[in-house]
């Protein structure tokens, strides 16, 4: 009887010309990718990246507080100087109690988060219990480590609620994995950190925390050209995640800094007089 040892397989990538059968094999091993036959892999990747111009530039943030984890992100994708989309979903729902954020290459983040979701589900089925946030982030970090140096661009945060309570990990394409209470990733993160760090308290209610997250994203989109669109805020609690709000940042601007009605009337009077 041949035992199934697929759970013990190490995550070494099989470099070679994977036929399309690999796609149907399931995801217990690291998926194998077609690689170009070239002596200068790095140079080729640089050229390929220039040509395909993957969408990046973003602001995402997440923090742990008394009531769980708050996750927020903008929704702009830029290709060089062109805004390719204002409605990208940067908060990826891995499963009903875990969220991942997207920063860096859009395709990389989408694919690897979907892959992580599959792995988490397989873990659940094999072990009859949910995977911990620590375990899920470790799976993702190990996968990315095996593709280290090949040009993936992933800066993600895994946020969830497991048996030990709320969990937040930052994972990047170098294979780095950090546990923490507050993270912000992306081109707009310095601006978001400024607002987030100055307003953060552990003892906040869900409304206060969501307002802090929304404001931080708004301020980042105000100053960073590569961030914008819709600010989405999610809350991860003991019962899983819920989407709290999705507001257009242009409208948030006038909500936070409304034009004083006196001045508006004055301008309209002057215009009418002309």
């Amino acid at each position, binding site marked *: 009887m041949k035992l199934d040892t697929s759970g013990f397989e190490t995550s070494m990538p099989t470099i070679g010309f*994977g036929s*399309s059968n690999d*796609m149907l094999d399931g995801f217990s091993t690291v*998926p194998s*990718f*077609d*690689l*170009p036959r*070239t002596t*200068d892999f790095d*140079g080729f*990747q640089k*050229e*390929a990246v220039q*040509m*395909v*111009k*993957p*969408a990046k530039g973003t602001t995402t943030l997440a923090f742990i507080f008394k009531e769980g984890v708050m996750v927020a992100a903008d*929704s702009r994708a830029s*290709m060089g100087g*062109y805004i*390719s*989309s*204002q*409605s*990208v*979903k940067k908060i990826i729902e891995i499963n009903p109690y875990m969220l991942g954020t997207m920063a860096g*290459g*859009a*395709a*990389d*983040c*989408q*694919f690897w988060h979907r892959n992580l979701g599959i792995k988490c589900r397989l873990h659940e089925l094999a072990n009859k219990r949910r995977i911990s946030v620590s375990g899920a982030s470790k799976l993702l970090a190990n996968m990315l480590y095996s593709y280290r140096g*090949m*040009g*993936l661009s992933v800066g993600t945060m895994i946020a969830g609620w497991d048996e030990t309570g709320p969990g937040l990990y930052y994972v990047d394409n170098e294979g780095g994995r950090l546990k923490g209470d507050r993270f912000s990733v992306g081109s707009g993160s310095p601006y978001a950190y400024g607002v987030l760090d100055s307003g953060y308290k552990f003892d906040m209610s869900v409304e206060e925390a969501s307002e802090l997250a929304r404001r931080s994203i708004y301020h980042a989109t105000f100053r960073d050209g590569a961030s914008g*669109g*819709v600010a*989405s805020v999610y809350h991860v609690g003991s019962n899983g995640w819920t*989407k*709290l*709000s*999705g*507001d*257009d940042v242009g409208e948030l601007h006038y909500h936070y800094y409304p034009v004083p009605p006196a001045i508006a009337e004055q301008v309209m009077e002057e215009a009418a007089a002309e």
Partner: protein
Amino acid sequence: MTKQHANWSPYDNNGGTCVAIAGSDYCVIAADTRMSTGYSILSRDYSKIHNCKADKAVLSSSGFQADVKALQKVLKSRHLVYQHQHNKQMSCPAMAQLLSNTLYFKRFFPYYAFNVLGGLDEEGKGCVFTYDAVGSYEKVGYSAQGSGSTLIMPFLDNQLKSPSPLLLPAQDAITPLSEPEAVDLVKTVFASATERDIYTGDKLEIMILKADGIRTEVMELRKTLSECWQHTLSIVLIRISTLGSLCYLELCLKFSCVVNRFSFSYL
């Protein structure tokens, strides 16, 4: 010793533009038929739209047509396998995810193809999925990809601006335009893009997907400058009806006569 850089690239850009618009019960996918390389035109009659043999999904791609051809073949065969395994056609959202995975599996040697997938979802509403070259995708109400996309997208944003699907409370992203209006918009948009993008032109192929089937329309686009006179005249006629100003008509006719005289020199 100076470093030798590779002079040969496996990629080339054949230009072209693809547009798709989703409606409440239809989907319009359109692409021009010009295939170019550098400053030369390889073909004036090359179709960028691929049927996928699924009656609910149509793929349109611009970029490097050799990669596009290979991608279309892969999708067609994967769809056939799916049909044999599941005894039904793939739905549009399923095809969208398949395309994303197919593109990502060549992450380190990408298909140089910029795709737009259009079709009808399970409820019969139009859906458009837009991709980058390595497979990141999202469901949108309308999209343009290719060399003319930077010219077309702002105009579509202006005419069709739909609320973002990320807003809460959720609002429908589908355009309220009727099908003839959407087809008209597509024709206008391509006519304008042809004016300013050298890689877009010749003919416009439009596919309209509805629940009862797929309809195809072909429209001629401006090939050279000599057609400017006819084009100007058609604009003049529209202007008369909107402005009703005779002096404007005189000016336009004078201008178009001058252009007609000189157009041959720009051929």
